[in-house]
């Protein structure tokens, strides 16, 4: 069957099918991205009204964003030139230009990959006074010692805490019945819990059956009547050592795993807090302290964990020759010298000082009025009690990264799909072109329109995410 108006336009609309189709699709895309842009505006305006959340600025690499903008603009020119080559009947040249478009898309996505990777390896810590430090090389190892009691959720237990047990020999456990250890010691496993569950439930089921027979109840046995929790005691107190991020919740006197297993023990002196190897930014805009000098950041900056032989081999920011404490004092000087400069400038102009930019301050590098570039990347050890939140730069860290990853991720997906379609036109459609060049040119135009839309979205993404 011949589909009408694939090549020639419909007389009433003046459009061929695919052209009408792509514009309707692009209209829906405008609404999709429009909704997300609208969300961005909402979050950004809302951040200034939120007392403990300020919009992060200058956290993305402008050169990366700039290069990607140039790449997408060039690809937009290339795609329209490629389309004109089809119109001119030169398929070879069309392939060359289309190849360049696909190459631009690949470079764009590789750049994006580098940018995402940098974010995944950059960390932030929000302290209990709402001050923020950011940097590289986090160590969130937490060790609990003296664990003798474990409460497990029978239905959810997956044995994950057993992987964190320190030492070679696995602990032996006994059941707690009526508040006292009972039965033979056994090695804990999912199968062992299954056996205990069956045994307890069999007893309970038999007792229930007796009640039914005695006419005390007419309710059938239900799975919900089975055992839910088991309390176990260890033969010898044991220790666990793991990344705090893998816990569901941590307490000074215990740890709760994601499978709801609760272990009672105390945090070891060897892991007193969360360690960040190289702080490159301090943000005191939302700090609760009365003066910036009183922030908890200065109290803990420069501290290092007792096991200073920790392996930070993965971190490219190798420690300099001066001590952590010296680096901290250098960072403090950079911060407060910059503060003084802002105050002096404001006084000279007779204006109120604007601390907003300063309090979101990079201590990694700062140029003082004498033109001297000062830098410091001190370590920090924040005691667990003062860690309000920590994360790498993902949506968990703040709403800025939530909207950043949503917008750029969705845009990246469009780049990938658009490039795949254009690649297909360029390198898998020669027969189609030879059969009906005019129809093929229409298809390329439709693909090109989608590609221009992808470029158009990035034109707005670049300034709002990278520059503002």
């Amino acid at each position, binding site marked *: 069957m011949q589909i009408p108006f694939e090549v020639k336009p419909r007389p009433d609309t003046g459009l061929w099918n695919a052209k009408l189709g792509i*514009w309707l699709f692009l209209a829906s895309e405008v609404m999709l991205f429009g909704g997300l842009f*609208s969300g961005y*505006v909402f979050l950004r305006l809302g951040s200034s009204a939120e007392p403990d959340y300020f919009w992060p600025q200058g956290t993305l690499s402008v050169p990366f964003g700039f290069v990607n903008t140039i790449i997408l603009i060039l690809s937009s020119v290339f795609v329209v030139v490629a389309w004109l080559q089809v119109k001119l009947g030169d398929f070879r040249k069309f392939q060359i230009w289309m190849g360049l478009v696909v190459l631009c898309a690949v470079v764009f996505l590789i750049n994006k990959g580098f940018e995402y990777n940098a974010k995944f390896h950059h960390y932030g810590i929000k302290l209990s006074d709402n001050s923020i430090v950011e940097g590289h090389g986090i160590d969130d190892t937490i060790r609990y010692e003296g664990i003798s009691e474990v409460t497990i959720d029978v239905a959810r237990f997956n044995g994950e805490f057993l992987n964190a047990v320190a030492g070679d020999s696995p602990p032996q456990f006994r059941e707690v019945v009526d508040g006292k250890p009972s039965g033979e010691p056994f090695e804990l496993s999912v199968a062992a819990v299954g056996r205990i569950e069956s045994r307890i439930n069999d007893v309970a089921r038999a007792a229930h059956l007796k009640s039914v027979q005695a006419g005390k109840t007419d309710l059938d046995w239900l799975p919900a009547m089975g055992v839910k929790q088991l309390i176990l005691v260890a033969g010898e107190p044991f220790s666990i050592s793991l990344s705090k991020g893998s816990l569901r919740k941590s307490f000074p006197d215990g740890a709760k795993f994601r499978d709801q297993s609760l272990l009672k023990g105390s945090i070891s002196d060897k892991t007193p807090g969360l360690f960040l190897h190289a702080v490159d930014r301090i943000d005191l805009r939302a700090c609760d302290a009365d003066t910036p000098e009183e922030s908890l950041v200065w109290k803990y900056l420069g501290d290092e964990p007792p096991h200073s032989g920790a392996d930070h081999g993965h971190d490219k920011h190798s420690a300099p020759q001066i001590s952590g404490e010296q680096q901290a004092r250098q960072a403090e000087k950079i911060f407060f010298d910059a503060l003084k400069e802002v105050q002096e400038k404001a006084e000279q102009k007779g204006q109120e000082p604007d601390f907003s930019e300063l309090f979101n301050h990079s201590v990694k590098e700062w140029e003082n009025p004498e033109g001297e570039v000062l830098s410091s990347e001190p370590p920090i050890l924040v005691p667990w009690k003062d860690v309000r939140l920590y994360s790498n730069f993902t949506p968990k860290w703040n709403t800025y990264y939530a909207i950043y990853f949503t917008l750029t991720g969705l845009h990246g997906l469009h780049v990938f799909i658009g490039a795949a379609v254009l690649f297909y036109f360029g390198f898998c459609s020669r027969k189609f072109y030879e059969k009906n060049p005019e129809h093929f040119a229409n298809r390329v135009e439709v693909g090109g329109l989608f590609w221009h839309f992808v470029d158009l979205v990035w034109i707005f993404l670049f*300034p709002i995410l990278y520059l503002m």
Partner: protein
Amino acid sequence: MADTPEEIQKHLKLYWKVGIILLACTVLTVVVAKVTPSITVGLLIATFKAGLVAAIFMHLSAEKPMIYKIMVYTVFFFIGLMFLTLLTMYDPAVSRVVN
């Protein structure tokens, strides 16, 4: 869109010119952001660039009325979306936090 080789060549030149203007505007955006971190100026340049892409590369400057009709509806609802969130500035809960 004209189809004669001469007119196609003419369009080819236009596309390259627009490409260069877009690149220049991108540089300008970065320079302006360095000099003055103004959201308005950055968005105005971005809107101009987007207008060029839509008008020239996407041929909206010489399209059929049906496409314009689709776009009018789209722009109308897009603007509605933007103002919808701006209305939250007057939300009583937010005002309470500010006060």
